[in-house]
């Protein structure tokens, strides 16, 4: 029954998408892959609107889908092509396609176990379904990525849950491969088209990605459909479809943004008509706008979670974004010259394209022919953002174009082309991959037909395929519905209904994590005392300015102002501000050593914290209480005198060390509780929570559940 619901969920979603695409394209394009991708753009946008209206119910999806299918039924003119009697080489190719199709079909249908699928892609989908629509999720920056694919997942999830979503993604791979073949046929090189399609279809990273609740293969399919339609006859319907698909690329994954410029550029080149360009642009905007509007309204950043320097917001700091981007640009590599081998053969960057793609430079030989130039231009367009994340997944979008160009280049020596494709088909099979890739490479391992048909225990499968699977079940059993759990490590959120705060996934979570760290880690305890002394005088305001450049994050637990031995009481008339990251500046003035303000950017000259008294205050010292893990900062103190002039009161503070305050651990827990955290997860091999495990009594927390080495502590 579960298997049937999965198949229905995926099949219904694909059918509705194809029907929508058919309604839009009419007779201008009969190929089902183009209709599917175009309809997916419309379906995704429709689901967005339903989710925004909190109408994400199974019944609503049924009615919506039935209406679309009913409307599309009379126009169902497309048909699967009838293949003529095929020569031997075609049969060989078809053999491989069938072989991999079986592998992928059952892999997609098996319980969803991909790292990103079970944490956030489907974690959000499950939440949206539970809550029947969107709610603002500020505690996880992944929620601010465009979620065009997740909208399709949501539609399928309503019927077939997690695996139905994965199967929808797999449908994009089938559409892609078919469309590549159709393109080759249209351009007069069907064998090269089929070979190019198989190069993509059998690629290990494409296989595992397409059978997971990811979006990279969908982007490739969208990119190729866009390319395909851009070289069709340009009717008004096709122009709208081109715009929708270009926009859909952005809606599915930001990295597909060049597709919009590409579409507009090609249309302008081909038609020289502003009106045609406007049609494309408006249609693209229709699909893009919901996501940018959502992000602007909810996260103060239309392109959240990126470009936070230009769209400052309290949810993602510039410092985090910079370090995140830096990580993605190189991972663990020491040189970019290591990339080709890593992405094709070793799989050390997460997945592998297949060693055959070391031959990718032969694609340049296709430049001799017009389709080759068009393909390589498209590859450049959809590959231009690759170096922002060097994972092989980010090469999937340009891969169809490169594969076709490779096949085109080699097609003049057909046996060679076939040999290349057959070798690729053989060595990409799961059983052979471990012979040349790294042992922990991300790829499929077998045909999981028992798991797919639910003949084998799902939990058993997930336990062996999902890191930390079982923790989420512990949360379901041991915490009350609606509970909030803080963790330093992501867990399979798609399988729990609890609110999970992962340390790195938002600025607020990072503060939660830091509150724990500074309660016991001497490096991070607020023991630093920076005292500015100056001549006693009346002042209107004071400003502490950071003057150095370093990688440290300036932070202040408390800023106190003194007149002799007397600390000035914080008057309600005072106004506090900070640049950058003003949002938590009040935490430096709340008389609590547990809370703190942290500058959202690494130390740069000119950053400041200011107190405007809005009255006259007499003072002779300013004391900053902070953690010592910011040795790279340099501070000076300025004051605004009664005549409005700013003068430097002290060029540098006197720095001393205070004893750690007693009771910091309990105070930290009290603060976390105040911030809405109910539980903390602690993994056995985790340094950040080692002290909690060792001294739960000092923290005042209670062990309520344990799964293997993972402990769940309840806050009082």
């Amino acid at each position, binding site marked *: 029954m579960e298997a049937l619901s999965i198949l229905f969920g995926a099949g219904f979603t694909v059918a509705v998408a194809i029907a929508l695409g058919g309604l839009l394209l009419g007779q201008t394009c009969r190929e089902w892959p183009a209709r599917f991708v175009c309809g997916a753009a419309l379906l995704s946008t429709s689901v967005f609107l339903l989710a925004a209206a909190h109408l994400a119910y199974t019944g609503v999806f049924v009615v919506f889908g039935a209406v679309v299918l009913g409307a599309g039924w009379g126009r169902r003119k497309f048909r699967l092509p009838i293949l003529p009697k095929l020569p031997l080489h075609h049969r060989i190719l078809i053999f491989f396609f069938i072989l991999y199709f079986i592998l992928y079909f059952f892999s997609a249908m098996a319980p969803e176990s991909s790292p990103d699928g079970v944490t956030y892609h489907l974690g959000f989908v499950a939440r949206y379904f539970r809550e029947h629509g969107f709610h603002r999720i500020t505690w996880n920056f992944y929620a601010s990525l465009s979620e065009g694919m997740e909208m399709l997942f949501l539609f399928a999830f309503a019927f077939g849950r997690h695996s139905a979503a994965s199967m929808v993604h797999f449908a994009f791979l089938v559409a892609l491969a078919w469309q590549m073949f159709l393109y080759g046929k249209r351009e007069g090189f069907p064998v090269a088209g089929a070979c190019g399609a198989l190069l993509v279809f059998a690629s290990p990273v494409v296989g595992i990605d397409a059978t997971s609740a990811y979006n990279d293969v969908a982007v490739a399919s969208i990119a190729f459909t866009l390319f395909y339609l851009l070289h069709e006859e340009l009717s008004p319907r096709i122009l709208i479809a081109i715009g929708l698909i270009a926009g859909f690329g952005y809606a599915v994954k930001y990295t597909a943004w060049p597709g919009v410029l590409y579409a507009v550029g090609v249309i302008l080149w081909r038609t020289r008509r502003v009106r045609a360009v406007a049609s494309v642009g408006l249609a693209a905007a229709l699909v893009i706008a919901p996501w940018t509007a959502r992000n602007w309204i909810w996260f103060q950043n239309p392109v959240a979670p990126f470009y936070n320097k230009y769209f400052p917001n309290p949810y993602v700091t510039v410092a985090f974004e910079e370090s995140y981007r830096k990580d993605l640009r190189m991972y663990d590599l020491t040189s970019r010259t290591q990339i080709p081998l890593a992405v094709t053969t070793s799989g050390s960057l997460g997945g592998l394209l297949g060693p055959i793609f070391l031959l990718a430079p032969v694609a340049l030989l296709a430049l001799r022919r017009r389709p080759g130039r068009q393909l390589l231009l498209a590859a450049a367009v959809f590959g231009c953002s690759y170096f922002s994340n060097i994972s092989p997944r980010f090469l999937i979008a340009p891969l169809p174009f490169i594969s076709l160009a490779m096949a085109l280049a080699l097609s003049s020596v057909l046996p060679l082309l076939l040999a290349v494709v057959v070798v690729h088909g053989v060595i990409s099979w799961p059983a052979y991959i471990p012979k040349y890739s790294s042992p922990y490479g991300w790829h499929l391992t077998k045909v999981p037909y028992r798991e797919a048909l639910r003949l084998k225990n799902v939990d058993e499968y997930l336990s062996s395929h999902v890191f930390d699977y079982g923790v989420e079940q512990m949360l379901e059993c041991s915490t009350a519905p609606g509970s909030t759990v803080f963790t330093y490590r992501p867990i399979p959120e798609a399988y729990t209904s609890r609110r999970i705060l992962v340390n790195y996934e938002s600025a607020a979570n990072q503060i939660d994590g830091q509150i724990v760290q500074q309660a016991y880690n001497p490096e991070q305890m607020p023991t630093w005392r920076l005292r500015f002394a100056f001549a006693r005088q009346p002042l209107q305001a004071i400003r502490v300015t950071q003057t150095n450049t370093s990688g440290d994050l300036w932070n202040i637990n408390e800023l106190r102002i003194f007149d002799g031995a007397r600390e000035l009481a914080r008057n309600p008339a005072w*106004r506090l501000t900070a640049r950058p990251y003003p949002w938590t500046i009040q935490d430096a*003035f709340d008389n609590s050593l547990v809370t703190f303000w942290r500058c959202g950017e690494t130390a740069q000259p000119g950053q400041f914290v200011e107190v405007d008294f809005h009255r006259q205050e007499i003072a002779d010292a300013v004391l900053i209480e902070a953690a010592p893990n910011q040795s790279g900062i340099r501070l000076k103190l300025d004051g605004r005198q009664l005549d409005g002039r700013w003068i430097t009161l002290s060029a540098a503070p006197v720095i001393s060390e205070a004893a750690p305050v007693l009771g910091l651990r309990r105070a930290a827990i009290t603060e976390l509780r105040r911030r809405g955290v109910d539980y903390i997860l602690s993994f056995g091999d985790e340094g950040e929570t080692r002290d909690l495990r060792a001294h739960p009594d000092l923290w005042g927390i209670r062990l309520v559940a344990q799964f293997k080495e993972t402990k769940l502590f309840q806050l009082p």
Partner: protein
Amino acid sequence: MPESFPPPAQRASLEAPGGLAHFAAMSDPDAAAYLVKGFREKNDGSWRWAVEHPVMRFYLPALSQAKFTMAFVLPGQTFRLTGPVTLTFSINGRVLDRARYEKPGEQQYTHQVPPEFLKPQAINIVAIEPDKVAAPHPGERLSFLLIRAGFTE
């Protein structure tokens, strides 16, 4: 982006009310407040001479666990006169520990304190009794140089 914020509601301080805390460094301007007796009055920078029967006091909040810790120096000049020294640590009149020091130089003493030795949310008295003191000059009794002492978790 918000321009400015008013001061928030003030939280209860983790520090002890009224001055005394759980820890004192001799470099602190108010270090004398922690010294009950047995220390030279003059403050020589970041340390103080303990003489005979030194006693200190600290305010402690409610704690489930605490350690007493003390950083001090046995100077070579006095050690030559006394030889190895044994310090007896008592808290609120109950003997906590006896520690013997065989060599001169900077020392770090840390010892877990049984909860029943402590008075929560009150002043706690710590006596550090040396078994011998040096008398480099007539009438002068010197034991060790105290740098900092107090309670940690």
